[in-house]
């Protein structure tokens, strides 16, 4: 019986189905499907639809009557707001299953996939480096503050971090432009907006990279400014509670050098609670930072999303949300793996 082909096939299937990777992939797909369905319904619950908004615009701007505006808007967009929701949904999921994100409603004829390809790299670059800097800085500062608790660094940074944490990003963005750019004239406002200067050749050359950094500077600074406080405060409290753990005292009693204690005993344990948060942040890197990109005219997904939401461009919104959810799902899987590496107690597929 053991060796019959049917049996072997069955065993193979069982192994695949039972494997960790399979479970993760299925779980990921199910999550994506659920989120997609949820956003599909949700964005259609927002007041107004693309046609309605266009009608309002046409009526305002071109003085059309409602019927004329409706006719024009319907002619402009390949979208029928009266189509039953379930029918729209089936169409959408059917296309999605074939890997087709559809075409933008507002910008008729433009595939959503093209839009995402256009904007995603910018967001990954700016928000990604922002997150990296913010996280590293937050972890280092937070740990230092916990180590020299009550010291000058701790006292000043706790106040500063709380303030930074509390000020909304668009305020920071505008302040940076208005104070540093307009009043202090540290830079020409026009030179720092957008993603890249128009006169540089794309490619791996010095002017291009300089321009890249120059344009990403303020968005990254704004991002770091508004998020680093959170990392600092979390890392500080996490480090403080870790420092109170017996194994730190024992490590000292064992005569371990300070460096080893900081890295392997305090750092590694104190960072565990931050990993989940980091995973979520990494996932949302993809969504960009709508307000920051809007103000700095940075060509990221956030800027695309802003226009899409304003005009109720359902397909584009769905596309962007799908990419964001996929990123969150993937980064969570990665976080699980990393978490397992860092904390053996939750090791994936562990012995117990």
């Amino acid at each position: 019986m053991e060796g019959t082909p049917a049996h072997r096939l069955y065993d193979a299937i069982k192994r695949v189905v039972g494997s960790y990777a399979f479970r993760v992939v299925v779980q990921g797909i199910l999550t994506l499907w659920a989120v997609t369905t949820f956003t599909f319904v949700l964005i259609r619950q927002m007041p107004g639809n693309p046609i309605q908004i266009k009608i309002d615009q046409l009526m305002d701007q071109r003085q059309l009557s409602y019927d004329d505006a409706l006719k024009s808007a319907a002619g402009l967009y390949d979208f029928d707001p009266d189509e039953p929701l379930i029918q729209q949904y089936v169409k959408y999921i059917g296309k999605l299953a074939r890997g087709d994100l559809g075409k933008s409603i507002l910008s008729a004829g433009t595939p959503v996939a093209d839009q995402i390809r256009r904007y995603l790299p910018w967001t990954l670059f700016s928000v990604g480096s922002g997150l990296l800097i913010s996280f590293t800085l937050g972890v280092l500062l937070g740990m230092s503050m916990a180590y020299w608790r009550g010291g000058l660094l701790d006292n000043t940074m706790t106040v500063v971090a709380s303030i930074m944490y509390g000020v909304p990003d668009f305020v920071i963005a505008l302040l940076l432009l208005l104070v540093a750019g307009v009043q202090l004239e540290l830079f020409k406002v026009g030179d720092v907006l957008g993603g890249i200067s128009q006169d540089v050749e794309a490619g791996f050359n010095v002017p291009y990279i300089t321009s890249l950094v120059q344009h990403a500077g303020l968005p990254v600074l704004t991002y770091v400014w508004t998020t680093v406080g959170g990392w600092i405060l979390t890392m500080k409290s996490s480090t403080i509670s870790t420092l109170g753990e017996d194994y730190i005292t024992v490590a000292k009693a064992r005569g371990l050098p300070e460096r080893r204690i900081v890295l392997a005993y305090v750092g590694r344990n104190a960072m565990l609670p931050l990993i989940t948060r980091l995973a979520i942040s990494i996932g949302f890197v993809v969504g960009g930072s709508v307000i920051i990109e809007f103000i700095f005219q940075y060509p990221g997904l956030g800027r695309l999303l802003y226009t899409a939401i304003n005009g109720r461009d359902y397909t584009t919104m769905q596309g962007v949300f799908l990419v964001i959810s996929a990123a969150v799902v993937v980064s969570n899987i990665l976080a699980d793996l990393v978490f397992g590496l860092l904390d053996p107690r939750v090791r994936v597929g562990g012995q117990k």
Partner: protein
Amino acid sequence: MKRYLQCLLIAALVLSLVGAAGLNKPAQAQEAPSGVWFGTWPYVLPPEHSFNAYVTNGGLETNLGVGFRSYVELPMAFYMWSTGEYLPLLAESWGFSDDNSYYWTKIREDATWSNGDPVTADDVLATYAIGRLMNWSDFAYIDRLEKVDEKTVNYIFLEGQGSLLAERFILKNYIRDAYTYGELATKAQELYDSGKTSEDPEWTELVDEINAFRPDELLASGPYTYTLDDVGDTYMTLHWHPNSIFSDSVNFGEIRIWAGETEATTPLVLSGEIAHATNVYPPSTLEAFAAAGINTVAIPRGYGPALLFQHDTWPWNITEVRQASALVIDREENAFLTNGLGATATQYMAGLADSMVPLWMTQEAIDQLDRYEFDPDRAAELLQSAGFERNADGKWADADGNVITAEFKFPAEFTDFSGMALNATEQLNEFGFDITARAIPWQQCADDIRNGDFELSVWSWSSQSPFPARQFYGPIQRFNYVGLTQGQKGMNFPMEFEWNGEMIDLDQMINDSSAGLDIEKQVEITSEVALIINQLMPFVPLNELISVEPFNTDLIDGLPDPDDPILQNPSSTDHFIIYSLLTGAFSPK
């Protein structure tokens, strides 16, 4: 073999050099003017951005906006609001046929595209052929187009539809080139000629094809053109070319358009990098501009906030209550709180923009208009005459003790409408009404107004069109059952009622106020409609918005004097900048 290939290559090289030299017209020794114009517009980036002049949001249609687009694709003419006259752009002459059965336009003899080809009647035909497929509302007036000669087109009206409204459509349309759109236009024309309608699948397919069309280059009849490489993250650049009829008159070699809306452009304006911006800036920002020494120019925006009543609901169905409401809101104060210096109190209360009243009403009718000067005593008398009394709390109530109470929904995102709503609420409550203001998302607010799901609300009155029917249109038709789809009742103001002893249809009267070409008759009807609105106050036109636009005189010469009639053109349509820039009124400092 190798040698042969080499020869071929060299020959090809030589040939292409000769060809290129031959194409360079020696006559065009002209050089681009040196100045740069800096403007702002929230254009989108490629891949949404394209040269397709028919798709909204992605194509020229929205990406250059009505302003900058005129520098690329010229309309036939430019309308002056102060005189009601058109000034020539692409066309040299135009007019109605004697029997008003058609309209005609003649393109300037020397008009050419940026590639040197002449602009002809074929371009006009192509433009409209695709426009019909895209459901252009022009075809509510026009039956078909006829080519008379190379430069002249006749627009044959649908029976009885010849009017000033139709003329405006015709003269304002941007003319596309048949070189780019000819093939699609032919398909569209054939499809229409074969009797297909938008219900047919072929029609939808062709619309999809037009939507997906991505021209490689842009042919311009105006003095500027650009390539997709000119569309950057932060700004896009329009480049001067020598072949337009306006190439000689403009004084700027480049037009740089900075991306973004108010928030993104504010720092740019402040740092002096913008010549002129059309964004709507809040009063505090305008103060900052003044402090930074940036000049501004004030022009009408063409509309303003109106207080809307739900006529289906007590007590707003009582004329005296609405009149009293108009009397107890100090419009000067309200205008200031709506938008600071960017709003002005309505004077005539006629449902027409104040500047349009002398043009479209008889003096006799104007004299009869009730100006609704701020007068709480008169309002109190009116209410008492309608059976209301102040109760012990100082609130107005009817004989049964029902207090005049309502919820005032307003769109939270629009600071001007919010300001108007909050102040109106306060003033009404001061008089003794019991109004609660409630902020909701603007799309929701528009929906609620359409659905009649409100008691008091705010939306715009008047419009960006200079003709009475369009001026009256909002909100009394736009947000009333007559202008909405079935089931939506809007403000629910009955349009058929008895007036001076006879039944009238106000909806029809408004439509008639701009029908045909008999101006005298239009003035008569307009006067009558204005008086009815003035008397019944179906909505209260509280103020008119003013667009205060930064205009950097350190960069640009030629800002018109404040009393220049061209400044009466509103910001949202027929913007004075378009004409002044094209005709060379502006020059770099």
